[in-house]
C-alpha cells in the first residue's frame, strides 16, 4: 500500500479550473518528485493535499485513510508537514520561536534539535534572531527544519531551491538525503538536476493532469520525453 494516494483530483481556484485530473501514488520512503512547467498545477496539488484548497471531485488518502475533507490542521496532525514555496516563515518570531511553534507540546526534543543544528548550523548560530533578518537560504533551512522538529511521515516541499545559491542548493540536497532516510518527501521542483539527484519515483504534471509517472532513472534516460513534457533538455 502506498503512503499517499491522490485519485482523480480536480481543484478549482475561484472560477478557474487548475487541476483537471491528477492521480499518483507516493510510496513510503525516499523522495517522490513532482515535475512540471510553470503553472502546470504542482503547487495547487500540494496545497490540495494539505487541505488549503479542497478538491472536488477527487480524493486524497494517507495510509489508507481518506483525508480529503479534513481541515488542514487535522491533516497536519496525521503526520504531514508542508513547506510552501514562500517558506511560510514567521518573520517577527525568532528562529527558536518558529521551531517551537511546530512542536506538539511546546518543548524541544533535544536529539531532534541537535540533528537540525547539525544539518543547518546557521540555525544554531541565530537562535534568538528574528527570522525576517535571515538570508534567503537560512529562511529555507528554517522552513525545512520546522517540518522536521516533530516526527513526520510525509513532508510536502514546494520548490526549495528557488532563488538559492548553488552552494546552498548542494547543502540542501545533502539535508534532504538524510531526512529521506526516515521520512518520505514529496518534492515539487523545477531544478531538474536537483530533482534527479534526489528522486526515486516521479510524476510530471502538465496542464492540471498527470502526463507521466514512473521511476526517475527511466525519465532521466528519456530526453525526448523530458523535452516533450518539460520543454528542457538536460
Amino acid at each position: 500500500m502506498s503512503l499517499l494516494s491522490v485519485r482523480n483530483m480536480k481543484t478549482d481556484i475561484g472560477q478557474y479550473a487548475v487541476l483537471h485530473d491528477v492521480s499518483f501514488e507516493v510510496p513510503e520512503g525516499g523522495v517522490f518528485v513532482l515535475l512540471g512547467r510553470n503553472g502546470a498545477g504542482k503547487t495547487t496539488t500540494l496545497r490540495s493535499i494539505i487541505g488549503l484548497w479542497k478538491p472536488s471531485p477527487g480524493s486524497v488518502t494517507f495510509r489508507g485513510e481518506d483525508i480529503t475533507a479534513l481541515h488542514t490542521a487535522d491533516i497536519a496532525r496525521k503526520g504531514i508537514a508542508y513547506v510552501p514555496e514562500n517558506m511560510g516563515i514567521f518573520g517577527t518570531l525568532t528562529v527558536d520561536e518558529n521551531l517551537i511553534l511546530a512542536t506538539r507540546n511546546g518543548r524541544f526534543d533535544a536529539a531532534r534539535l541537535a540533528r537540525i543544528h547539525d544539518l543547518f548550523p546557521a540555525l544554531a548560530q541565530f537562535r534568538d534572531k528574528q527570522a525576517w533578518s535571515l538570508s534567503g537560504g537560512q529562511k529555507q533551512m528554517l522552513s525545512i527544519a520546522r517540518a522536521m522538529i516533530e516526527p513526520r511521515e510525509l513532508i510536502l516541499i514546494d520548490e526549495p531551491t528557488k532563488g538559492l545559491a548553488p552552494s546552498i542548493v548542494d547543502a540542501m540536497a545533502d539535508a534532504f538525503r538524510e531526512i529521506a532516510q526516515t521520512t518520505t518527501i514529496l518534492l515539487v521542483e523545477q531544478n531538474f538536476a536537483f530533482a534527479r539527484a534526489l528522486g526515486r519515483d516521479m510524476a510530471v504534471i502538465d496542464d492540471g493532469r498527470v502526463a507521466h509517472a514512473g521511476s526517475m532513472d527511466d525519465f532521466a534516460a528519456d530526453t525526448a520525453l523530458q523535452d516533450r513534457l518539460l520543454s528542457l533538455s538536460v
Partner: protein
Amino acid sequence: MTALTTTLGRAGGVNLLPLAVALIAFVLIGAPSSWVTLTVAGLAMGMMLFLMASGLSLVFGLMDVLNFGHSAFVSFGAFVSASVLAGLGGWLAADSWALNALALAASYLAAILFGLIAGWFFETVIIRPVYRDHLRQILITIGAMIVAEQTILAFWGGTPYSVGRPAFLEGSWIIGDVSIEIYRAFAFALGVAVFVMLYLVLNRTRIGLLIRAGVEDREMVEALGFRVDRLFIGVFMLGSALAALGGAMWAGYETLITPHMGADLMIVVFIVVIIGGLGSIEGTLLGALLVGLMSNYVGFLAPKLALASNMILMVAILLWRPNGLRPAVK
C-alpha cells in the same frame, strides 16, 4: 543621515515618537503646568483608546476581518457599566473607600463579561458566515452596529445617561501649579496594567505565540496543526471584552454617555489601528498614545484644528510608513 537613523533606532526608534510630540508641545505651550495637565489627559485618553483598538487590530491581523461593529462593544460596555454603577449607587455614595472600589470593579467586570458573551455571539452569528468577503463584512458589521445602537436606545433612552464616579476618583491632585485629575491618572494606570498583561500573554505564552504567528500567516499556522478559527473566537472575545472595558472607562471619563458614543469614537479607533500597524499590540499602543497626546495638545493650541489633527497625523505617518509604525508582519 544613516548614522542619525541608526542612533535613533538604537535609542528606541518610533517608540520615541510620543516623547518627541510631548517635547515639541512643551516648547509650544510654554506653561509647564498646562503642559503636565494636557499630557496626563492625553496619556489617559491614549490608554482608553488602546483598550478599544487593541482587539480590533488583532482581529483584523489574525483573520483579515473588518469589523465596523466593534463600536457596539464600546457603547454596550459603557452602558452596562453605568447601569451597574447606578444599581450600586449605595456603595458608590458610601463613605468607604473599599465599597467605592467594589462598585467600580463590579461595573468593569460586568462590562468585561458582557463583552466576552457578546463577542462570542457576534463572531459566531455575524462574522463567521462572511469570512474572506470584505464587502459583506463591512455591510453586515455596519448593520450590526446600527442594530446595537438602536437596542441601546430602546433600553436606555436617547437622552444622555449620567455615569456615577466613585468618590476616591473625584477631584484632582494639586502639585504646585499643576493639577492632575485623579480619574485620568487612574485610567492611565489601568490601561498600562492591561497592556502589560496583554504583552505578557502575547510574548510569554504558547497561545500568544500562536496569535502572533497567526497574524503573520494564518495558513501556515494551520499547516502546522493548529485550528486558527478556534483561536480566533478567543481573540475576538478578548478584543470585545477589552473594547467594553475601554467603553466603561470612557463612560467614567465623560460622565455623560449617549447611544452613539461608540460610533463617534470608532473613527479615532480606526486611526489608531492604522497608525500603529494592523495586528500589532505595541503599534496600537503607540498609535493610541500619539492620538491621545495630539488631540489634547492641538485642542489647546489650535482648537479649530482639533478634529483634523488626527487625520493629519494619520496621513503624515502613512506617507512615512505605509504599513504603520509597528506593523505585525515584516
